[in-house]
């Protein structure tokens, strides 16, 4: 694979670009980062780390929660399925609703989360529920 010039790379990206009007909420597992990125709106965003698992995305325009990055997905999946084997029934064809991942994180916390963290999770759960997104759940 040969390196691409900045100009060629930018042109290639613009060929892949779609108008924001065609946006649909997505939650995609990325094996390169072992992370799930969730985005509910096409806004530009800034990120804030919530805890070891979740970084939340806020819209630059409205400051609302519009997505998140879930890190360390392989390890988290193993931990959840070990702690709560019943979760397995929520995984269908290797996919799970994103909202279950946020709830599983809260329910397996060793201590009650700080109020600000709990509030952020509540907002994320609401956005994930409204978006109805599913994602790949790797357990390997």
């Amino acid at each position, binding site marked *: 694979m040969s390196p691409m010039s900045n100009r060629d790379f930018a042109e290639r990206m613009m060929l892949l670009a779609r108008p924001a009007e065609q946006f649909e909420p997505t939650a995609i597992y990325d094996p390169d980062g072992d992370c799930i990125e969730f*985005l509910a709106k096409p806004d530009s965003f800034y990120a804030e780390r919530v805890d070891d698992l979740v970084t939340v995305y806020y819209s630059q325009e409205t400051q609302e929660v519009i997505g998140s990055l879930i890190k360390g997905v392989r390890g988290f999946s193993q931990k959840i399925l070990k702690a709560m084997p019943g979760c397995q029934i929520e995984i269908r064809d290797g996919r799970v609703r994103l909202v279950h991942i946020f709830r599983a994180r809260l329910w397996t916390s060793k201590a009650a989360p700080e109020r600000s963290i709990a509030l952020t999770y509540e907002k994320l759960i609401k956005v994930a529920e409204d978006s109805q997104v599913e994602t790949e759940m790797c357990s390997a």
Partner: protein
Amino acid sequence: MAGNCCCEIQISFDRMQAVGRRSMGHAKECGIILPMILQKPTAIFEGLRSDEDEDRWGYGWRCYCGIPEQSFRPDGSSARPYPGQVYLVFVNDEKVTYNWRWEKADPDDPRLPVDHETRFKQRLL
């Protein structure tokens, strides 16, 4: 993507497609800001700390920081960079970039992200 001197960073085509589908603005962030930060970073940190999986997120995983010349709205139009924010590009130990985004900057050094002292194991640049 060609690096400035000796380091070649890759990006998966799946990731490019996923980002392109979001909006023109997201596509331009990836196509224009991402290479700029990787080639002219204001700081590079190595060793992303995480209690969940220390080994996997340890040495070799890097965070490139910088302040882009512009930001992009969802329609792809450009604007000034967001004040008080810095752009971060994350690269794994196989030199594949997998995440990039704006974050709040350290008030004492706007070229660096908040909490940079505790988030990373060491600073390379």
